[in-house]
């Protein structure tokens, strides 16, 4: 099983884009929109990472705990 290098770059890219949008929206004066953009970016990444963490725990269970 290979490592998905794409997702690493995706996470970093989303982080940079969200930070950029946050700065732009802040300077335009839409502070609440900036907060929403940050929140959605965070949730998107959290979803991806959570699925991988679940995968990891399943793997540990099947390898070490014989279930």
């Amino acid at each position, binding site marked *: 099983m290979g490592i998905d290098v794409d997702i690493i770059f995706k*996470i970093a890219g989303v982080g940079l884009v969200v930070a950029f949008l946050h700065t732009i929206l802040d300077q335009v004066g839409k502070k609440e929109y900036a907060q929403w953009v940050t929140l959605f970016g*965070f949730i998107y990444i*959290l979803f*991806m990472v959570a699925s991988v963490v679940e995968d*990891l725990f399943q793997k*540990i269970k099947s390898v070490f705990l014989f279930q």
Partner: protein
Amino acid sequence: MAIEIIKIVAIALVATFLALIVKEQKPNLAFLLIVFVGCSIFLFLADKIYEIILMLEKIAVNANVNTVYLETILKIIGIAYIAEFASQITKDAGQGSLASKIELSGKILILAMAIPILTVIIETIIQMLPS
């Protein structure tokens, strides 16, 4: 096998670099990135670990060792790995006290799991003692 370590090191270095960049803007996203890379490196290694465990099991069956003991030891290794993983992540996020609680619970659970083995050892030693 030699190519794979180069692969893992390359991925880890790239991820460290990206995390350094993202950390200036959004520290929480950098943290998630590190969690992701840690998980995927372990998933990469899991198949190898499975082969090692199969070999250990075969040796234990050949040596007529009770497989319950080997199973317990493997479960202990699994608990230790999960606890270590979680405590490192929590420590990276700056919650040292929570990390030490995770380590403590890992130790307690390992000790509870090792009770049958410990009982057998103590009984054997008591039998060896001249009465």
